[in-house]
């Protein structure tokens, strides 16, 4: 009994420290990564090329100011936004349509939704290689089919006019299932009463879709969209393994451009400045995202 009372304060201090002790290792492992982050911000304010070390110097925001009049930079912004808008837009519409088709829990629908996971679990870099083989001008099955359909001279990723289409197609192939499974889970978790009441009253189905399904599904759609926006604006794997950003500058999105800036032109400072701008965009997006995601998470936990 006496031993217990003596031990009590010590134990309380221990339990107070315990959560820190438990989470600290995980944090420490990741904090090492914060150092390069700060370095990147610092680099972005330098004149710094690996091939001209003597020229290195601090120039404040000149790299950023130079971007304003740099048409290559605006091309990168344009391509990135176009890529993001197209992929996320198509994936959202497509994913919602598929989720609604598979909504009913039949054995066939469940099997279909499981099979649709396969593209999502394929590494995007490898998915791009798969499509590259299928669109090869000499033997690619898709090149052949397109020709059979009467479109001659369709060069897929190797022509500037169709390169964006091709990488967007690969992105849609990989990531539509992501939106689909999130929305399918959302659809299946919706309460049934409003739909039953609408059916009893003979409400037209288009009305049900726009006035009941869509509003109730909105939180899921917003979360899925933000998730994809964050990934899509940073896309690297698919574009890099498909075309390395080419032909010309057609597919130079932020990360591909900064990769080439770093390794091909050894312009560390410019590459860092590009990435800091991209980071600012994703930071703003992820703040919106996390709020939305927390709301949905709260709801999922609450109904569990």
């Amino acid at each position: 009994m006496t031993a217990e009372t003596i031990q009590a304060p010590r134990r309380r201090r221990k339990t107070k420290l315990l959560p820190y002790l438990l989470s600290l290792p995980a944090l420490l492992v990741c904090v090492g990564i914060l150092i390069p982050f700060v370095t990147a911000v610092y680099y972005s304010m330098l004149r710094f090329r690996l091939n001209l070390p003597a020229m290195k110097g601090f120039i404040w925001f000149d790299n950023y100011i130079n971007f304003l009049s740099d048409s290559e930079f605006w091309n990168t912004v344009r391509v990135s936004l176009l890529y993001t808008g197209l992929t996320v837009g198509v994936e959202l519409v497509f994913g919602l349509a598929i989720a609604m088709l598979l909504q009913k829990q039949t054995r066939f629908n469940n099997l279909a939704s499981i099979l649709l996971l396969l593209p999502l679990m394929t590494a995007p870099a490898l998915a791009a290689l798969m499509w590259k083989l299928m669109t090869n001008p000499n033997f690619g099955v898709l090149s052949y089919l397109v020709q059979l359909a009467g479109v001659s001279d369709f060069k897929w990723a190797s022509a500037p006019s169709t390169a964006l289409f091709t990488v967007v197609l690969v992105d849609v192939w990989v990531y539509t299932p992501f939106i689909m499974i999130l929305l399918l889970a959302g659809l299946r978790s919706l309460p049934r009463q409003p739909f039953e009441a609408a059916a009893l009253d003979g409400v037209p189905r288009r009305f049900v879709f726009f006035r009941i399904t869509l509003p109730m599904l909105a939180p899921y759609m917003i979360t899925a969209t933000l998730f994809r926006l964050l990934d899509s604006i940073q896309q690297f794997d698919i574009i890099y393994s498909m075309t390395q950003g080419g032909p010309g500058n057609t597919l130079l999105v932020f990360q591909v451009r900064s990769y080439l800036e770093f390794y091909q032109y050894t312009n560390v400072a410019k590459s860092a400045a590009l990435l800091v701008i991209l980071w600012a965009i994703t930071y703003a997006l992820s703040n919106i995202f996390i709020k939305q995601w927390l709301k949905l998470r709260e709801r999922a936990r609450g109904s569990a």
Partner: protein
Amino acid sequence: MEHTSRLERIIRIVLVALILIFFLFPIFWIFLMSFQTNEDILRIPPSPFFTPTISNYQALITGKLVSAAGTLDIPFMRNLWNSVLLSSVSVVIALILGVPAAYAFARFKFRLGEDIAFTLLSFRFAPPLLVLLPLSLYFQEIGLTDTYAGLIWVYQLIALPLILWIVRGYFEDISPDIEYAYRIGGHSWWRTFTRIAVPLAGPGIAAAGLLAFIFCWNNFVFALILASADKQPVTVGSLAFVTASGIQYGQIAAAIVLSVTPTLAIALYAQRYLVEGLSLGAVKG
């Protein structure tokens, strides 16, 4: 919904069939290609009927590609081994670090707790190159470039946030009362954690581990920047292989098949948990 007409049912089935063709055809076609000789592949029109050969897989497994121009070494098996090693060690370390942290975030409301949790989550969303490019310069200085240790460390950025947030959700679903009862029985905190909490969250921990494994396996950019040929996983290795022997299409297809099989198998096995895992626990599957 009960009044679906026959016509509508047929349209639905046709649509689902078209969707399945679009999403499964590439995998099916590459699988076929991996059993074709180069002559079969180059034949016009492309045909799904041919005499299958395992020579592509043989070349990859033996690492020697004999062609008219001579013998070419293919380090693909090495890449496959690197993928296995990097992904599994990264996930084991992430579990050791992440599960206790997830437990702390789920059970204790402590100062800075949420801030730390969100800092860890935010790593999931930052542009990887922002960190990787300066890191590659640092790694050169401290000698971590092109080492498994360096890569595994960086892979924690993929695996840890995932495990942390998924497992946390599972711990939060377990009522703490069971743990209190066990503690009152005179057992230490650590025993309660390992004997009660971890087994109860077991399925969740396993699912998070498998998902993290898939994400590590599928990662491309980390190893592209930090590893040279003999440490590269399959994602980077396959691309290098394409560049090195651009015309051995059958082997490329076989390499892709071998590279995606593990993740696809895991996905099919753990599909029940994927929805929850992919949404970091925001949507219940």
